[in-house]
């Protein structure tokens, strides 16, 4: 369950930062991203996949969340 810090990049894309690994990647796809909830399966630009139970209402970024490896 890596702890992940989510923040917006200068270009407005959501960045996925795993502090332990110093890995910073853009999020390519989120399963659910609307007014009700944010979360589900998350795919990064490098192809790796993570999962988080949808959070409702959507969290305010930047924030730190725990993801599961999918």
């Amino acid at each position: 369950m890596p702890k992940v810090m989510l923040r917006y990049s200068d270009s407005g894309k959501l960045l996925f930062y795993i502090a332990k690994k110093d890995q910073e990647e853009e999020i390519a796809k989120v399963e659910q991203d609307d007014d009700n909830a944010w979360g589900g399966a998350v795919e990064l630009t490098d192809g790796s996949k993570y999962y988080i139970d949808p959070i409702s209402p959507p969290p305010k970024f930047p924030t730190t969340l725990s993801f599961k490896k999918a």
Partner: protein
Amino acid sequence: MSTMTREETQALIQEVLEVYPEKAAKDRAKHLAANDQSVEQSKKCITSNRKSLPGVMTIRGCAYAGSKGVVWGPIKDMIHISHGPVGCGQYSRAGRRNYYVGMTGVNTFGTMNFTSDFQEKDIVFGGDKKLDKLISEIDQLFPLNKGITVQSECPIGLIGDDIEAVAKKKGKELNKPVVPVRCEGFRGVSQSLGHHIANDAVRDWVLHNRDNDNSFVSTPYDVTIIGDYNIGGDAWSSRTLLEEMGLRVIAQWSGDGTLAEMENTPKAKLNLLHCYRSMNYISRHMEEKYGIPWMEYNFFGPTKIEESLRAIAARFDDKIKAGAERVIAKYKPLMEEIIAKYKPRLEGKRVMLYVGGLRPRHIIGAYEDLGMEVVGTGYEFAHNDDYDRTMKEMGNATLIYDDVTGYEFEEFVKKIKPDLIGSGIKEKYIFQKMGIPFRQMHSWDYSGPYHGYDGFAIFARDMDMTLNNPCWGKLQAPWKKQAAESASQAA
């Protein structure tokens, strides 16, 4: 030799790796690469932040160096105790030239060495009592200190001393922050983890101290300089530019910085991050907790300064944007003069760098402004994200080396034959004796500052002074030279 092709660079790497045992060669091969600008993610072609191989000459430091030497050390009005045996503190004392203003020993303590000087009995019976006594003594002798940090050396972690308990107790007693930092040297693979630990200590023990105190009046133009250690006055020459464009710098982390500045940082509107590697952790934390955005900038060389000033101004209103243009216009004639003077003397020269932190990528622009070319670069302790940023700055097929060993570095230099090398004191005399001009790029070779417009003038002069020094033509003994000359005449 002009620029190398990708195949030549790969062949060079293979050639250098040949002397290693098979397993070591396999491991080292992952840390050496020919740059490929088309690769988006550096981890696909270079591995970093891994343990150095036993038996090779690595140039890395330790976690204590990262915490005491880099992050905490320059905070001038706190006393930093090197907790453990005497050597770590003494040999790292004042070597980094973090300039500051103040009366040393009265209200500032930057160049002094405080140590608990562990003896055998402290290892056997524990050093907590000694630390307790030491902190009381320090506060008695130096009452103007604003706080104390305990920088652990290796034995503290090994014998299991509870420095947190002592720090809490003494903090209450003295009514000052007493910060325990668990930066024992054996943690992690390089000084990089020390930076992280130090950042975490700031987060846990300092940053929130004034959260409910609104006596500091902030303005909409408050910024901070983060990750500038004021080596030779770097932070000052950066700060003047920001102030000239109308911003107010409320904190310097940590060169010439104070505890109060750190505590007031959450009141800033924007954190300006120079050394990404050592202070991104705290910037990320402040973004999450206080909603302060952060951005990286680069104050090496006029091209990058211009870019950075505009990028910083873009975060503010038109007044600051106009201010940035004013600053750029003001220094433009000065910069043109410097480039006109030094570029003809330096143009086309090739440079190899091997430093740490931000410099292997940030300085490239400054060299390019002088018409020079960086043909090889590498970091002591970078992570993937640093290489992500570096690959875009470097030319295609140039050599990139991570945690390079003494042997590899020498061999690369022999083959690539650069005109100038920028690295540290440990490398300096090897390469000077090989007859290659060398500048220390950790401490600016006792010169500086190199940041900002004023710094660029000094940078250009220093590079010229080193490269075009007449001594490089005098390396051969005169009688040997004559023999060679007469032989060539006879032929």
